[in-house]
């Protein structure tokens, strides 16, 4: 490699100086902004009372073990739900792309299901599934966590199957043509050619749905399952202090952060690949 010219060296020096300066400016402005917010909050008339009832270190420390134990239930519900949602969504998306008059009832049923459950608030689905189905007396007694998982699965499957369908329809028709020309059948084409490409296209959207699911698993507490939120509620009623809620909230944030960062990183990576070579 040849040594850079004096002109290029001068340009590099300038760019380095400019980026050092912008780092200092951003650090400085962040500190000033944070200080302003802090002073603003602390100088409110009710701050002292809020500090005692929401930010009490002693109560927080006592709540941590119970909240973490509850969080373990949330994590299990999350991963079981995510796996079920993934499988069911792919199935529903494939059913909805079926062509032909014979399959009209299937397409219609899937369409009604996705419309209904994308519209229904999760909280109401939780009540319906969690209290309604056990009341039928048909199923054996199941823990609240089970029904909570079921409610999350039916709600999220409706969303995620639409994401998959959009992804499958976004694969260029020439891919289907090429696959069928090789003699692959309809389902073989879906499985070997369309779905793998669709999956790549929708991964950022799926990761985003997973992030939103991570906090929605906290709602199973309304069914009486002792998850992180319910554990915090119990601690609150024991201590007459709201700090345990904050502990539970932070636990959810800490749980979500790796996935949030991973989603952003992966989305940015895909974007870079598509706009190779530019500086704007």
């Amino acid at each position: 490699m040849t040594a850079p010219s004096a002109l290029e060296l001068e340009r590099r020096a300038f760019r380095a100086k400019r980026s050092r300066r912008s780092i200092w400016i951003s650090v400085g402005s962040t500190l000033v902004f944070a200080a302003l917010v802090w002073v603003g909050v602390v100088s409110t008339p009710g701050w002292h009372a809020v500090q005692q009832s929401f930010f009490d270190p002693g109560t927080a420390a006592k709540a941590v073990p119970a909240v973490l134990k509850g969080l373990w239930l949330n994590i299990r519900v999350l991963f079981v739900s995510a796996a079920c949602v993934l499988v069911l969504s792919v199935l529903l998306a494939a059913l909805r792309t079926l062509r032909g008059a014979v399959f009209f009832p299937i397409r219609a049923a899937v369409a009604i299901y996705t419309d209904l459950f994308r519209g229904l608030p999760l909280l109401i689905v939780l009540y319906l599934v969690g209290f309604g189905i056990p009341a039928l007396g048909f199923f054996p007694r199941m823990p609240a966590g089970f029904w909570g998982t079921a409610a999350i699965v039916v709600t999220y499957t409706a969303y995620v199957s639409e994401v998959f369908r959009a992804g499958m329809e976004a694969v260029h028709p020439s891919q289907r043509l090429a696959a069928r020309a090789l003699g692959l059948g309809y389902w073989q084409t879906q499985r070997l050619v369309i779905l793998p490409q669709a999956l790549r296209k929708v991964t950022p959207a799926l990761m985003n749905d997973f992030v939103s699911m991570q906090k929605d698993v906290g709602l199973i507490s309304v069914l009486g399952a002792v998850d992180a939120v319910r554990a915090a509620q119990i601690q609150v009623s024991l201590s007459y202090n709201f700090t345990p809620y904050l502990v539970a909230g932070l636990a959810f944030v800490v749980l979500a952060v790796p996935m949030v960062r991973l989603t952003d990183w992966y989305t940015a990576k895909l974007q870079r690949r598509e706009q190779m070579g530019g500086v704007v």
Partner: protein
Amino acid sequence: MSALLSLAGIRKSFGDHEVLAGIDLDVAEHEVVALVGASGSGKSTLLRCINLLEQIDDGRILLAGEDISDPRVAADRVRARIGVVFQHYNLFPHLNVLDNVTLAARHVHRLPAADARRKGMDLLERIGLGAKAREFPDRLSGGQQQRVAIVRALATDPALLLLDEITSALDPELVGEVLDLVRELKGQGTTIVMATHEMAFARDVADRVVFLDSGTIVEQGHPDAFFGAPQHERTRRFLARVRH
């Protein structure tokens, strides 16, 4: 000996527009037939009808004596016997080169994975792309991608190979390597029907040139006769236009 492929009275319309207005064409085994004609003359549609990717409105298609236009015939099984190469390669971007080539062998012809791989590698070595077997298609040049697409179509030993303007999307300096491969296939006795804009190539490789205009065959013949002494006014006008 009857023809390997026999088309009789093929008609196809898209809405009001009649793209194929009664095509009769026989292709013998080991024959290379070049379909030429202006854009929209029906060349690509005819190829897609032969492979059952389009449904014909009338007529009959016989492949090795079997009526493949009969709706009772399993279309997937017919397509498995015909190889197609498209203008835009249509390689599968999520599979590496070797997996692209062996996909049909593994899933349509149910060859054991090891056999399919050996055969795929063999074909890739022959076209000088053995080293690219593990690369993904987007890392290859257009000419390399199109050669992989040809090998993908050949990997299942089809009875008939259809080439749909396979050099139209390529940079001029990459056309040669693709055409060389087609020339080599002819040497091995592959039966080929190709739609093409490369007149020089059609003249060089084809056993017969078929000129389509507005969905009918206007003229056909040996390349020397077709290019040397075209009989029809429409053929002469077309050749005059494409020659410069």
